[in-house]
């Protein structure tokens, strides 16, 4: 028992518990502060018990006491003493031998937010479930009493027919007259085989119960009247939500599959199908998709195949929900899966997908454009012009890439405009896109660019990119243009001109232009090293395909 001079250390220990409670509520389990808090609290409690013996706390509404000494008091209603008191805890004792695991369990119990995390539990249930060997509690269960007089009334009712009024003698005589021997249900000893069977039973019992419940819910649906369908579908949806919350995608899939195939031959088959559509609508809802997003983001292993399969059960209504989570996901892996989902779903409703282009977050817009590109549907082009002027360069770049891949013939003005973008990367991407489109007008744009006066002053890479893009057109006109470029001369800016010619040589190599061999041979002796090198490489490519 703690004596009067031990009050202070006990008070300090209460403070340790309070601080620990606060920390455990703030920090996630994997945070080092979380485990350190537990270890520190354990060390303090262990020291206390070692030095002072068992700690026995008594609880009043606003006070914690040791014996008749108050060691904690507070006025606020939500005080530490009241936390225990309100659920009926009146005494709590910590005994020598307390383990770190027990302290962890105790601190986790007191830091549990019962209102938010589980309405079904209270501190007593948590302590009870903890089943601690060195932490004991005494509970006043009077508030559990439903009806204070029930026990007395029930007892009186049960005894209304007292045995004293029964003629035991008559029973005795009757029984003596009966010939029958004692009736026995033979108790059979439990054998090893029984125990083995029982162990298997217990192992089986660990299996997920959800599949059976879902079977039951659909049985219930089938066995119900039309008026009850709505209620049962609500239950099915609740089960669905439970699956999503727990990341049980296989089970969610099971529900969708069962909902897809209602029993044939029923009188109101049509109505059944109609009602069950709500399951699919629910599966597409922001709430459910949001839960899936959380699971994807949590880093826990999620069955990727099941996720894909799940998405295949959804329809275009799910697009807005997936766009929403696309902006919220934190991990690359999760975004990747959601993008894959949107590639599938967006195809069903390009317009719904395009709404994502109005999102405030640049990365959402970029991803939507990327999804358009993956879908490869030219209908997407009409939405891209707006995004082409997006303030974020990464978005603009994605638009240009997409225009290139989707061969956006009607978007030449966008690409042409992009060639004047102050960002080199944008200009380069635009050139590449023009090359991919391979139309006469895109060729014209590139040729005009190469022929423009400022082109000579462009950085070598940009020049090279333009010539490389032009190599996509393997036609006489292009060859002629390139040969002309190769032969270009200039008195001024000779080095720039040599770069220009080197790029032309490179491009001629790419188109394997044999008529370029002669001028290229001559350039093998050029003074400019770059020009020499590119001429040499072009010859090798034309001659030997290297």
């Amino acid at each position: 028992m703690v004596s009067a001079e031990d009050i202070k250390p006990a008070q300090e220990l209460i403070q340790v518990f309070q601080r620990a409670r606060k920390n455990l509520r703030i920090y996630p389990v994997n945070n080092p502060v979380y485990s350190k808090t537990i270890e520190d609290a354990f060390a303090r409690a262990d020291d206390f018990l070692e030095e002072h013996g068992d700690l026995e706390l008594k609880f009043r509404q606003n006070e914690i006491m040791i014996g008749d000494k108050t060691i904690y008091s507070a006025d606020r209603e939500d005080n530490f003493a009241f936390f225990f008191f309100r659920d009926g805890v009146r005494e709590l004792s910590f005994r020598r031998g307390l383990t770190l695991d027990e302290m962890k369990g105790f601190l986790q119990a007191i830091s549990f937010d019962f209102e938010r995390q589980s309405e079904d539990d209270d501190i007593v249930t948590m302590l009870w479930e903890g089943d601690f060997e060195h932490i004991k509690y005494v509970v006043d269960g009077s508030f559990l009493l439903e009806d204070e007089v029930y026990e007395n009334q029930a007892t009186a009712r049960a005894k209304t027919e007292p045995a004293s009024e029964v003629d035991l003698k008559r029973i005795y005589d009757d029984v003596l007259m009966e010939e029958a021997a004692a009736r026995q249900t033979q108790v059979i000893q439990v054998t090893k085989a029984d125990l083995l069977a029982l162990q298997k039973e217990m192992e089986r019992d660990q299996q997920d119960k959800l599949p059976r419940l879902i079977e039951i819910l659909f049985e219930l649906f089938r066995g119900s009247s039309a008026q009850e369908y709505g209620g049962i579908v609500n239950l099915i949806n609740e089960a669905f939500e439970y699956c999503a919350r727990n990341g049980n995608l296989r089970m969610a899939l099971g529900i969708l599959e069962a909902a897809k195939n209602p029993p044939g031959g029923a009188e109101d088959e049509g109505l059944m199908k109609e009602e069950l559509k709500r399951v699919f609508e629910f599966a597409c809802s922001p709430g459910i998709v949001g839960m899936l997003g959380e699971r994807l983001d949590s880093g826990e292993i999620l069955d990727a195949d099941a996720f894909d399969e799940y998405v295949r059960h959804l329809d275009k209504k799910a697009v807005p929900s997936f766009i929403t989570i696309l902006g919220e996901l934190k991990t690359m892996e999760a975004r990747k899966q959601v993008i894959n989902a949107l590639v599938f779903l967006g195809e069903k409703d390009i317009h719904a997908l395009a709404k994502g282009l109005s999102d405030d977050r640049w990365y959402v817009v970029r991803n939507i454009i990327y999804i358009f590109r993956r879908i490869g549907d030219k209908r997407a082009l009409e939405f891209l012009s707006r995004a082409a002027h997006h303030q974020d360069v990464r978005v603009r770049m994605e638009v240009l890439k997409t225009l290139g891949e989707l061969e956006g013939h009607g978007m030449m003005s966008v690409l042409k405009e992009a060639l004047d973008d102050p960002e080199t990367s944008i200009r380069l991407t635009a050139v590449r896109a023009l090359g991919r489109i391979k139309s006469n007008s895109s060729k014209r744009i590139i040729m005009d660019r190469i022929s423009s006066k400022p082109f000579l002053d462009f950085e070598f890479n940009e020049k090279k990119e333009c010539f490389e893009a032009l190599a996509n057109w393997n036609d006489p006109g292009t060859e002629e243009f390139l040969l002309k470029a190769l032969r270009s001369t200039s008195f001024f800016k000779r080095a720039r001109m040599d770069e220009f010619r080197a790029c032309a040589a490179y491009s001629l190599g790419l188109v394997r232009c044999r008529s370029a061999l002669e001028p290229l041979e001559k350039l093998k002796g050029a003074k400019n090293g770059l020009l020499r090198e590119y001429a040499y490489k072009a010859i090798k490519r034309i001659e030997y395909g290297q």
Partner: protein
Amino acid sequence: MDSSQGKGRISRDIVNQLSVIVRTAQIHDPRNVAVASAVEKFVSGVNGLMLEEGPIEIEIVGEYFYLNGERVKFTTEHLLNFDSLLREFKRRRLGSVKFVCETKPEEVQAFLGAFVSSQYAAEPFEDLRANTERLKCISVGALRRISEGAEDIRKAVKHTYFNAVSFTRGVMNRIKTGERISMKKAKRVVETMVDTLLEKEEFLLGMTVIKDYDEYTFHHSVNVSILSVALGQRLGMDKIKLMELGLVSLFHDIGKTVIPNEVLNKPGAFDEEDWKLMARHPLSGVKIIFNMKNFDSSSIRAAITAYEHHIHPDGSGYPAARKLSELDLFSRIVAIADQYDAMTSSRVYARVPMSPDSALALMVKRSATQLDPLLLKFFINLVGTYPVGTLVMLDTRELGIVTGANTSEHLRPRVTIITDADGNRISPMVADLAEKDGSGSYPRSIAKAVDHNRYGINLAEYFL
């Protein structure tokens, strides 16, 4: 000894090992190598714990082992060893073994020798005590009679029982009026029941014989919960699982709340429509459970049990299922507890209840099709050949009521004697039929089981 293991596990291992060495010693000489290595393991466990705890006493209270006053919990894998050791202790009227100082293997071997040879003695415990008196560190104690504080325990248990009934009544009434149910409270009620069962099983099981015709549904729900948890305990379920089972079984009939009172309390026989309504209660139960509780593992389990508890393993029963699925373990446990309590209760559609032993006999007949045979076997082992509440005539011509089972000797339960050998009423007196007299024979044995319902004996008189 690794203290992180936890005393609970160490205690369990010690009792388990004691069972092992007892069994091995019954086959081999206690000095045999097989016995010796098992003994060494046992000694190391005992001495290790003694370093922390001081003297160690392994004791039987009711049907369970306690080590230094704390109940030793076991799981399914230890069930057979615990059960066999319990029988061996009880056979010898041995109540406790105490280790007071660091024990040597030779001393444990000497104890085993005395233990094995005592089974053939006319007075096994006295024989065992005499042969172990010379041991320095090991002493034995006789099986304790029903404790003197039984009245206080009975009062506390009665309080727990009626509180649960009253709570169930409140829940069912609130469901009828559409009010919200506090699952927090439900859990607390069940936790108390589980604790009571773990510590005072016999007393709480005794309360299930109290039947209240007017409040049948509420009593029945609680009785089924108690019987289910008791069976779960025999199956080696842990505390958390027992709580889940208790909660699930308490709500197994929750679907009946939507059946109109006129049908539930109909004085005459049920017509087809009434039965149709009754047969829908498992379906209603599922809906009600999810209305009163969010989807989580326990509500899922409760819904499954509410739905399945009238479906038989062979697929018969109701509601009719389109395909035969394996019934959940909880559903099969609840089905047994449900049938037993229903058969032994007076209900509107079966006014005259069956006697407990007749009910059990009928259940055995049904076990192939309607009930799980394995679980029923454990259930019969739990309630015994003469379940609590059975009226019996003894071979002494005394009449008595079974008030407590005796696991090791099913035919020798504890009986409250209510008449003398001439049929005259006497003040109730408890007799343990497993106890032998000075000459080593049983002074009382059961001659006949009698249907108390035929005579209107109110069992409440003896249990409240």
